[in-house]
C-alpha cells in the first residue's frame, strides 16, 4: 500500500502502483479540489505540485511519487489566501470554476520561480490549461495582480530585514 505525502500529511492509499495519482487523490483520499478533465495530459485540470513542480496528476502514477512532496489546491494555502487565490477572487475569474484549481496550481508554479513574468511568459506557461468557459483574460490579469502583490510583499519584507 503506497504512502503519499500530501499537503504535509502522510497518507496511505489502497491503490496499485500504476494507479494515476489523480484518482487516488480524488476518489480514494477524497480531496476533490483536483479535477479530472481529459486523463491524457491535454487540459491541466488535474494539476498538482510534486516537489514544487506542476505536474498532471492524471499522468503521474502513485508508485512514482511515494516519498515526494505532493501539494494540491487544498494545501496551497492555509486559508485559501495564497496571493493567486486572492487575485482570482479580486478579478472574479471563475465561471464554472471546474478548471480553476488546475489553473491556480499551474500559475503558482510559475510565480514561485518568477514573480515578475511577462505576458508572453504567462501565456507560454499556462497554454496547456484549457478553460472551456474561456476565462483566459481574467486568468492573465489575476496572475499579474498576484505577481505584483508577491513582489510588493517581498519588497516590504526586505525593507524590514536588518542589514
Amino acid at each position: 500500500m503506497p504512502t503519499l505525502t500530501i499537503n504535509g500529511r502522510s497518507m496511505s492509499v489502497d491503490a496499485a502502483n500504476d494507479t494515476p495519482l489523480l484518482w487516488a487523490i480524488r476518489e480514494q483520499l477524497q480531496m476533490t479540489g483536483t479535477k479530472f478533465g481529459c486523463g491524457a495530459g491535454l487540459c491541466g485540470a488535474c494539476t498538482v505540485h510534486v516537489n514544487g513542480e506542476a505536474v498532471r496528476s492524471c499522468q503521474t502514477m502513485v508508485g512514482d511519487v511515494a516519498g515526494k512532496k505532493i501539494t494540491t489546491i487544498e494545501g496551497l494555502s492555509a486559508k485559501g489566501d495564497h496571493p493567486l487565490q486572492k487575485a482570482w477572487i479580486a478579478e472574479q475569474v471563475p465561471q464554472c470554476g471546474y478548471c480553476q484549481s488546475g489553473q491556480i496550481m499551474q500559475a503558482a508554479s510559475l510565480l514561485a520561480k518568477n514573480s515578475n513574468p511577462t505576458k508572453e511568459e504567462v501565456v507560454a506557461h499556462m497554454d496547456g490549461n484549457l478553460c472551456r468557459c474561456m476565462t483566459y483574460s481574467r486568468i492573465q490579469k489575476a496572475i499579474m495582480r498576484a505577481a505584483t502583490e508577491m513582489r510588493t510583499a517581498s519588497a516590504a519584507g526586505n525593507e524590514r530585514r536588518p542589514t
Partner: protein
Amino acid sequence: MNQHVKNVTPEATDLSRRSFLVGTAATGLVLGYAGVPGIGEALAAAPANFEPSVWYAIAPDGLVTVTCGKADMGQHIASTMAQIVCEELGAKWSDMRVNLASNDPKFNDPVLGAQITGGSWSTMMNFDAMSRAGAAGRMALTEGAAASMGVPAGELTVRDSMIVHAKSKKQMSFADVVKSGKATKTFTADELKAIKLKTPDQYTMIGVSVPQIDIPSKTNGTAKYGMDVMIPGMAYGAVVTPPVRYGATVKSVDYSDAKKVPGFIKAVTLDDKTQTTTGWVVAVANTYANAKKAAAALKVSYDGGPNAKLSSQSLLDEAKRLQKLDDSGQFFVKDGDPAAALGTAAKVLEAEYTTSINIHAPMEPMNATAEFKGDILHIYSGNQFATRSGAIAAGAAGIDPKFVVMHQMWLGGGFGRRLDADMMVPAVQAAKAVGKPVKVIYTRENDMTMDFSRPLTYQKVKAGVDGDGKLVALSHDVVSAWPTQRWGIPDFLSPSVDKKGPLDAFTVNGSDFFYTVPNHNVRAIKNEMAHNATPSGQLRSVAPGWTFWAVESMIDEIAAATGKDPAQFRISLLDGAGKNDGGAQRLRNTLLAAMGLAGYGTKKLPKGEGMGVACVSSQERATASWTACVAHVAVAPSGEVTVKKLTVATDVGTQVHPDNIRAQVEGAALWGLSLAMYEKATLKDGGIEQTNFDGYRPLRMSQMPEVAVAVIANGEKATGVGEPAVTVVAPAIGNAIFNASGARVRALPITAEAVKGAMKA
C-alpha cells in the same frame, strides 16, 4: 414516506392557485408559494428537520439563503437570483447565501413551469418573481418589526438587513424580527402581483457588480460538482461505449479478463428503454481506477446497426438532396412571394453555408451518482433539465418519476450538454444491479464520442436584388438534425406557417431577423439521417449559431455585389418597418456602437488586414439581446487567418451585474471564435472521430485575440447574455476575411486552405 414524493402533485405546478406565504417557522422565515404540499409541515417542523423549501429562507442569525432553481454552470445565476431578491428585500449582500434546488416542482421556473436552464432565459424570466419574493419578505419583516416596536410600518425604512424607525431611533435587524416570530403576513397571488416594485432609479443592488457568492469556493477546491459526490459504500462505474454514435447493439460480452481485475464487481449491459443510449456496457468496481481497468478488459462485440457506415459526407449529401426537393420541410417564415420576386429580380445571388459537427466538451466530463434508498432513487448530478432528466432516470430504473429525487450540483460547464440525462442511465442500472450506490464517470473519450452534438448543418440562401440594388427577396433553407424534437415534448416545438405540422424552431431561430425584406421565407428541413446517426443537442446559442452564419454572410455578399459598405447596407435594412419596429432600431444602434468602438471605417488598415461586421438578434426573436461585432483580421497569402481583435457591443436592456455580463459576453465571443476557427468534429463509420482535446481543439490562451466589449443598458427589460455573442463572431470574421483578402468562406470552421482556395488568383 419521503416528503419530496408527497409534494409531487399536479396542483403543485399550477402557479395561479398559489398564494405566497410569508411566515416564521421555528428556525426562520420561509418565503414561497403556499398551497405547495409540504410547506405547512416545513413551517411547523422542528428545527432539526426543517428544510428551506422555497425561494429563500431567513435564519434566526439573519442569513438569507436563496434557493436557485436554475442550473449554475458558470453564469453565476444562483448569485444573480440572490441579488434580485436582495434588492427588494433590503438585505446586506454579505448576509446572502445560495442553495441549489432539487427537482421538487415547487422550484419550477415561474414562467416555464419546468426546471430547465437554457436559452439565456433565466434572468429575464425570473426577475419579476424573485423581485416580488424579495419585496414580500421586506413587507412581512417590516410589519413584524412595526408590531414589535409599536410604530406604524409606514415610518420604517429597510437597509442592509436593518429595519429602522428614524423618529424614535428604534431599530431591529432581520435576525431580531425572525427570532421574534412576528413576521406572519400571507400574500395571495393577486396581492403579490399588486406589490409595487422599485423603479430602476431606486435600485441599490441591481446594476452593481457585487462579488459572486460562488467564486471563493471555486478558488480553493471546495465547490462540489457532480464529479465530487461521495456516498458511503458507493462503487464506481466506467462505461464502454460502441464505435458507433447511435444505433449499435451489444452482441456479446466476454468478461473473463475483467474478472481478473482486483475490485471488479460486475459488468452490466444497459437495457435502456428510454433509448437515450444504445449498446453501452458499464463495468462496476470498488474504485474508479479499477472500474476503468475492468472496462478496458471487457471484450464487447457489437452489431453496428443502421448508422454504422455513415460519415459527415453522407449527412451532407443527404442534406443537399433534401434541400433540392420542393416538398421538404416546413415553413418557419413566409412573407410575400420570394419565388416570384426572385423571378423578376435584377440580380440573384445564391450560396451554400455549412457548419460542422461540434462537441460541447465542458471541462467536467459527464457523470452521475445513483442511489436507491427505500422507494426513492436519488440522483446526484449537475443537470440543466431536472424535469426531463428525472423522468429519464426513472425510465432507466423502471419506476415512476415521482420517486426520483435529483440533487443539483455545481456544473463544471453546461453549454447545453447537461440538458441531457444519458449519464444517469448507466449509473441507475449499475446501482440497481449491484445493490449499492454507483458513481459513473465518463472518460473524456466517452464524453466526446457520445456527445449530443451541435448538428452538421447545410443552408442554402437565395437573394434577389432589384434594379436599385434593394434587397427584395430572400429564400433560406436550413437542413439539420432537430435537437429539440428529440426531447419528445410537444410544448418545445412550434407550429409551421404552412400548417405542415410542428417544427423545431431551435434549428431556425435567428433566420426570422429584423431586416426589412418584403419577400422572405425560411424552410426548416429535418435531416432524418443526421438526426438518427448523430442525436443532436443544444449547444450554446443553438440555431442562431448557424442561421446567422448564413444570413450575416449573405448580407455581406449582397453588399459586395451591389457595391455598398456592408455596415451601411445593414443599417438601411434595419429601418424598423412593420413587425421589425423597435428591435431593428435597437440592433442598428448596437451595430453603430460596435463600429464606433472598433473605429470601423476610420482607420486605414495595412494590406492583408480587414474588418468585417455582423449583427444578430439571438436567441429567439421574442427574447433577443441585440448584439453586433466588428472583427479585425489579418490574412496571409497562405490563407492563414489571424484574428487581431473582436469588438462586441450588446444591448441587454438592464444590467443586473455589469461585471458578470462582461464575463459572459467575452466568454461567449471567444466560444464564437473557437467554433469559427478551431473546433471541428467529423463522423466516420458512424462514430465521432475526435476523442480528446488533441483531436478536438477548443481555443487556448495563446489563441486569444484582444476582445473589447461594450454593454448597452438602456433601461429596457433585462435580456440574456450567455449566448448571443457566440453567434455574431463567425460571420464577422468571415466578412473580415473577405474585406482583407477578397476570399469568401462559407464553411465553418474556417480553414487556411478554404481561404486560400477562395482567394482570387
